[in-house]
């Protein structure tokens, strides 16, 4: 009998749970580790929907058009073969989620309904009210619970990943964790480790992310030599509710359902439109729907980077509502039926601001939202000679895989709205398949206790060192300062001067961090120790973001540097790779070519558009489905 494959999956959002389900289906035994109850993972915050080109609206939509929109939305920085396969798997995955019982909104005849989202002209977004991520997560969580009852999954919730354990050949053989209730350090052995730990919005503190999205796991692996891809690409969502503790997302679906963005016009002012025109800033005292005027074809549904830049330039021109950093998102004209579909988010707005958005326009402003970059993962393409000698979604460390927001795949320089839920589920399934092949193909030597003991000792030493630090600094105050630097210099508008200044600022924080004193020195659910340990690695990731941005002298997707106002394919059609240099403790930046085999880069224009079926080139003969038993092997 074949030996049972034992896998550790770290993170229980959409990607982690998808990987677990696929692994269980294929007969593996999984230990699922999460800092929280997996049902409380950040996927719950995704509101608007999931993109799949099933063409139920008679628009001649097709996975090829979805592929085209995604590649163009990402400003041609995404490798194209994985995007193609994700879009082709979309219709299959939505049927799976339907069978799992996700309460998608329905048409009058009982079929799944679709709405329009940003960066496309098609109604391609399936949704469950305005909490689609929550509903998808619950459905996957339920299936994993079913496997748990069958004994195929063991959950370790309230545990945190600290480091991967690599053998003398550099192959990942397990990982070190601590129990957040008693802070005890231990390791787990595994044939493979799958990371699915999400994005890093909390580095910016004021973001739409959950407080658990620190990005620390990526930082820990980066320190161990794992490559980070495209770290400088951070998505700023155009519409969030300003707040003291976090910036709460106001879904793109609000605009997909007809919500309009405006400020009071001022005809004495002018702005440069993207098509070269100089336009007047509306009529004084009257609503100026600036996105509709700047981008006639896509209007309020331009991609997020485009909308965020427009809002910031309008506010910089002095047109913010009440002179503040806010613009109106107006849903007051929508009918009750539409308001009902958006109830979850309208309730959030009302609860946190006290204003009823059905009666008065919402006041919103852009906020850090999504991490396009992340752990570099491999993708041997279908039909390529090396397809079955390399493994999809494996990092540069053998046996260490990554999926979901913590990896760098699919979204290039900017993610399209409602593509994240698809990429998380798809990449989780891909990873499940590939892990099984990897463990069957790999020959690993015997393990020694010393290997794991040594790794545990390193973490125990760092824990004791943190507990023993003495000084005047408070880690939460340092976090606010780090966030201040990152938001000022690392978000919508960047400059080389600002980025250099920011790197100095972050290094100064790293220095001061040595002089923290923890307000809690105990071993019982010590959240201060937990955060201080994470902060060490958040600093590393912050430096990769800033350094990647400093090097990239062009304007691409979410990376906008007015000094270099154009996309520069000749010099910059390449992916940023950041590796940790233990000598300098700074990121070393190198580049890799982008796989553009299916679509030659074209101008990314959203001012005009017609529905065309794009011609994709070099397509594989057959695209495998991730739920097929052999995933394209036969």
């Amino acid at each position, binding site marked *: 009998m074949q030996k049972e494959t034992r896998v550790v999956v770290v993170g229980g959002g959409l990607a982690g749970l998808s990987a677990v389900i696929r692994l269980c289906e294929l007969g593996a035994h999984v230990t699922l580790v999460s800092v929280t109850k997996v049902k409380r993972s950040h996927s719950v915050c995704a509101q608007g929907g999931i993109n799949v080109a099933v063409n139920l609206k008679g628009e001649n939509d097709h996975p090829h058009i979805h592929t085209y929109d995604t590649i163009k939305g990402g400003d041609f920085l995404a490798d194209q073969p994985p995007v193609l396969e994700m879009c082709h798997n979309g219709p299959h995955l939505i049927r799976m989620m339907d069978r799992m019982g996700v309460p998608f909104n329905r048409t009058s*005849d009982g079929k799944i309904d679709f709405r329009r989202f940003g960066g496309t002209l098609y109604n391609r977004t399936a949704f469950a009210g305005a909490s689609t991520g929550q509903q998808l997560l619950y459905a996957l969580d339920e299936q994993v619970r079913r496997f748990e009852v069958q004994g195929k999954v063991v959950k370790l919730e309230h545990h945190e990943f600290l480091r991967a354990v690599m053998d003398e050949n550099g192959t990942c053989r397990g990982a070190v964790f601590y129990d957040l209730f008693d802070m005890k350090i231990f390791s787990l052995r595994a044939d493979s480790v799958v990371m699915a730990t999400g994005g890093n919005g909390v580095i910016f503190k004021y973001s739409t992310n959950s407080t658990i999205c620190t990005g620390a796991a990526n930082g820990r692996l980066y320190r161990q030599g794992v490559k980070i891809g495209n770290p400088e690409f951070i998505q700023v969502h155009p519409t969030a509710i300003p707040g003291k503790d976090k910036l709460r997302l106001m879904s793109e679906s609000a605009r997909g359902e007809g919500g309009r963005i405006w400020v009071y016009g001022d005809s004495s002012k002018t702005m440069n439109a993207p098509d070269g025109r100089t336009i007047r800033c509306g009529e004084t005292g009257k609503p100026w729907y600036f996105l509709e005027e700047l981008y006639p074809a896509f209007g309020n549904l331009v991609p997020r980077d485009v909308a965020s830049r427009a809002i910031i330039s309008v506010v910089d021109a002095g047109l913010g509502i009440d002179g503040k950093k806010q613009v109106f998102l107006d849903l007051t004209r929508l009918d009750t039926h539409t308001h009902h579909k958006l109830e979850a988010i309208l309730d959030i707005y009302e609860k946190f601001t006290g204003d009823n958005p059905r009666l008065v326009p919402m006041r919103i402003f852009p906020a850090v939202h999504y991490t396009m970059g992340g752990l570099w993962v491999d993708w041997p393409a279908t039909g390529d000679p090396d397809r079955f000698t390399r493994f999809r979604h494996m990092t540069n460390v053998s046996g260490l895989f990554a999926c979901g927001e913590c990896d760098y795949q699919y979204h290039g320089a900017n993610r399209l709205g409602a593509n994240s839920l698809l990429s998380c589920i798809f990449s989780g399934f891909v990873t499940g398949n590939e892990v099984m092949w990897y463990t069957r193909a790999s020959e690993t030597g015997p393990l020694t206790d010393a290997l794991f003991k040594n790794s545990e000792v390193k973490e125990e030493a760092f824990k004791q060192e943190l507990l023993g630090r003495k000084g005047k600094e408070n880690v939460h105050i340092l976090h606010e300062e780090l966030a201040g630097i990152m938001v000022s210099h690392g978000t919508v508008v960047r400059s080389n001067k600002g980025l250099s200044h920011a790197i100095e600022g972050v290094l100064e924080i790293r220095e001061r961090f040595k002089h923290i004193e923890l307000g809690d020195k105990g071993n019982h659910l010590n959240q201060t120790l937990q955060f201080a340990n994470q902060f060490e690695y958040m600093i590393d990731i912050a430096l990769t973001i800033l350094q990647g941005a400093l090097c990239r002298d062009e304007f691409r997707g979410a990376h906008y540097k007015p000094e270099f106002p154009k996309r520069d394919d000749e010099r910059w059609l390449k992916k940023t790779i950041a590796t940790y240099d233990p000598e300098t403790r700074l990121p070393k930046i190198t580049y890799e070519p982008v796989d553009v085999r299916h679509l030659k880069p074209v101008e990314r224009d959203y001012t005009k558009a017609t529905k065309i079926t794009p011609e994709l080139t070099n397509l594989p003969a057959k695209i495998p489905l991730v739920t097929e038993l052999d995933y394209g092997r036969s």
Partner: protein
Amino acid sequence: MAEVKFTLKIWRGTPRHQYFEEFEIVLIHGMNIVSVLMEIQKNPVSKEGKRTTPVVWEMACLEEVCGSCSMLINGLPRQSCSTLIEPLLHETGKDVITLAPFSKFPLVRDLYVNRDRMFESLKRVSAWNPIDTTFSPEFGPTVSPKEQDSMYTESTCMTCGCCLEACPQFSSSRHFIGAAAISQVKLFNSQPIGSLLKGERLTALMDKGGISECGNAQNCVAVCPKHIPLTESIADIGGEASRHAFKLLFGLPN
């Protein structure tokens, strides 16, 4: 404008070592309970000026969709992220807000309790659709918009535990499964694929701690942050369970 201050009085500590500690806070417009606890982390000094440990609590999304940050606020089970300070001070006319951990779940520390029992209950009632494989050449059966609407509402349950904390029949020493899991039975029994396990779920609810132990106090529905019609679910499932018991008794087909 003059600075307005208020006091946060927190019932904190570890099992068998709980005590009140007070913190004085300067009111800022828009503050909620979580943002105040975050302020305390930056300078953990009590009202008497004593340096203390930062308060421990559970949080994640801060937009009332993850269910993490449940606690007793002025004695009521609520989500702390969506509880704004100003209306609370205004409603009570006092300048003190009291926080305490849920009392019906094992205390871990300060405001952090262990709600594992709720997740075990979801296993007991088979709260899932029993799909055969993930391979999906077809969509599931059609669902009317009306059916979808009630499924969606029931499916927004975030396992926060407010309904159980408020329930007089639920406690750490008793077996009653509580409203959250019963409502999930209603949800999955109404799903086309989920209904295939209808009998098993009803049988599970007829055991010790099952639906018959509901005392109909209706506290659950009053405190549910997602406005799930929990008492309707309990009534519906109660009726179904009785019919199911009758069928089992006489060996009738389901």
